[in-house]
């Protein structure tokens, strides 16, 4: 077990290292520099700026220096968007905003999606199943910007009667401003979870031990939630692990639509602005988070199904 985790963590470190290098090289390959703006600075200023931030050195030396700093926990400072502010402090400010919305979104997605999937599997082939299937297929077919903008049109100004929620996210307005972003962020995961749960539940409802449970005279609720669901959770966990990281770091699109000052929107803006250290910092942060979640997922497998033997590759 410990050997397995040592291997996993080693693998994770290699991945993070590769993502870091890849991002760094990609960023440097892009023509244009962060100093481009309407009033183009003079050659001397450019040279001075490049020297100050170490951009005049060859790429591999920059990369080495960056990796060295990274080990010390130094992500560098923003070059453009919030000049000279440490990237770590930017992430520390943006992440909680995204995380709050993301956590709410995923919570409702799981709390609704999993039971809906169970219901669909239990009522297989009946009317309820068909309706749920239509909704969920529709849900995974609508990009989040479609969901978000349709919600905006419907509930935030399109019709005077239904203008319930604010268009722009503002924590001062309380729960109202959370409703639309959380709904649109959680809609896709909800539908996906429901679909996954349904097919996994169908598998596990066909198993012998369910027959045994029925023969024992257990109630349906108990059969589904205690016996069948536990085994059906594996694919759901597999999906949700990386999804947690993604959602907590903010939907890129949803944050743009609702002008939420979160990490996702900031990442997209930093790409457009070529603010290298911010791009690097956010990417590494998110990548680490996702990779960490993958390790957590492995641990959760064991909790959901103690029969799983991780050391044997699980095949």
């Amino acid at each position: 077990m410990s050997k397995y985790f040592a291997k996993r963590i080693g693998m994770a470190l290699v991945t993070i290292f590769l993502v870091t290098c890849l991002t760094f090289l990609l960023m440097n390959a892009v023509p244009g520099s962060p100093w481009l703006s309407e009033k183009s600075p003079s050659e001397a200023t450019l040279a001075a700026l490049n020297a100050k931030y170490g951009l005049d050195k060859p790429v591999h030396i920059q990369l080495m220096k960056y990796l060295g700093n990274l080990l010390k926990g130094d992500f560098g400072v923003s070059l453009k968007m919030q000049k000279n502010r440490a990237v770590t402090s930017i992430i520390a400010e943006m992440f909680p905003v995204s995380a709050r919305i993301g956590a709410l979104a995923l919570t409702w997605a799981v709390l609704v999606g999993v039971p809906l999937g169970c219901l669909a599997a239990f009522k297989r082939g009946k009317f309820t199943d068909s309706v749920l299937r239509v909704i969920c297929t529709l849900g995974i077919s609508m990009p989040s910007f479609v969901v978000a903008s349709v919600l905006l049109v419907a509930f935030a100004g399109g019709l005077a009667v239904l203008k319930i929620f604010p268009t722009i996210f503002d924590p001062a307005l309380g729960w109202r401003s959370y409703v639309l972003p959380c709904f649109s962020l959680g809609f896709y995961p909800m539908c996906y979870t429901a679909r996954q749960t349904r097919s996994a539940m169908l598998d596990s409802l066909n198993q012998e031990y369910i027959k045994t449970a029925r023969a024992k005279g257990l109630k349906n609720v108990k059969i589904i939630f205690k016996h069948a669901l536990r085994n059906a959770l594996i694919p759901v966990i597999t999906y949700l692990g990386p999804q947690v990281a993604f959602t907590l770091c903010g939907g890129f699109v949803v944050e743009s639509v609702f002008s939420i000052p979160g990490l996702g929107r900031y990442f997209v803006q930093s790409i457009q602005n070529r603010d290298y250290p911010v791009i690097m910092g956010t990417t590494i942060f998110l990548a680490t988070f996702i990779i960490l979640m993958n390790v957590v997922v492995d641990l959760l497998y064991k909790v959901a199904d103690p029969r799983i033997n991780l050391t044997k590759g699980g095949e």
Partner: protein
Amino acid sequence: MGEDKKMKRCPVTLQPDIENLLQDLSADDFSSASAEERADFIQERKSVSYWKDAWRRLRKNVVAMVALGVIIFLFLFAFVGPMLIPYGYEQFNKGAENLYPYHYTLEDQQRLDAEVAARTQSETLDVDQLIAQAKAEAEAKGEKFTKKDEAVIKAQAKVAAQTASDTPEADPNVIRQELGIKKHLFGYSVDELRRKAAGESVFPHVFGTDMYGRDIMVRVMYGARVSMAVGICAALLVLVIGATYGAISGYCGGRVDAVMQRFVELIYSVPEMLVVLLIATALKPILTEYVNSGGNSPMKAFVNILGPNLISMFIAFGVLYWVTMSRIIRGQVLQLKQQEYVTAARALGASGGRIIRQHLLPNCIGQIVVTTCLQIPSAIFLESFLSYLGVGVSAPLPSLGSMATDALSGMYTYTYRLIVPSVILSVMILAFNLFGDGLRDALDPKLKK
């Protein structure tokens, strides 16, 4: 034959009564079959091929067939549609800016204008008339009429007109309702209506136009074309890379497989969305610079034809999304390579490549088709996501995602501009998803639940 056979034996026994059977047969029964009977026999045993069987199952699936119909319709819409419409996607139709997807007839508009004029008589004096009047007055007084005075009058007139239209009795919508003016399908500009009245044939703006007077229908068609092209090409790319990689990994096995699978795991744990976003952003300017760098080479021409943004998207997709496909193929190949026919082929001296191409891949064709088909909607999804964020397909080529972004600014007044591309995009992804699901059920009966 044997109808008058008597049941003399113990009724419980399961043994066939051969002796009786033979006794009942006459010499006639051994004559050779007539041509008709032979034909009948062959008819009955008509072999059902894998694809025919799958097609039969697919045809029974109403949802999948409807989805297929929608896909074919969208395909025609995207690839044949633009030829039928006399507008280009980058054509600014003067005088047809901001058209709604509906219009009012010319007579109705005249009635409306008359009504508005009647209600707000004093305010709607012609600006030019006012200026002329003021000019005359000024000249009569012997003063100079300056540009400034003219501007003041214009501004006053504008304010007056605004307040006039703000007052409830002059609101065009209210008046239209009172007069019973109805909306008619499709957008026409006033000029186009006049030409139409004059007997010219004018193609309507079915979905209206945007702020520059570009026809939304044509733009949506081109957008759908881009989406479909990206979806299908990306899926094919994934198919080629994934199938090759998976088949080699599975067939070779052993150490080669172990190393190749480590690499797959590595790519699996890379945050896809993030890297795709990065690659698409970074490669686009690189490729653009490459195309613009002068000189001629076939590679450059190729990049130029497809456009740097499409290629960067393909690369992003090709780099990351083949892993699922490769895993599926590898699993299948691992199973199949134990079969006797593979051993036989190897004994006959077939090379590894030949065995993979001729024996292994054709045998997992079902899985390959299904996975490829389900890859299309996810590629379309990704393309629209990137375009929406402004790093995907870029102007002048329209994309459904970027059309939706453009529409955000006026989404309450011009909701249709947001709705039209969104609906087409969603329907397209939905149709591909449903068809893929149906295909999976049809090709892989084991999976059918």
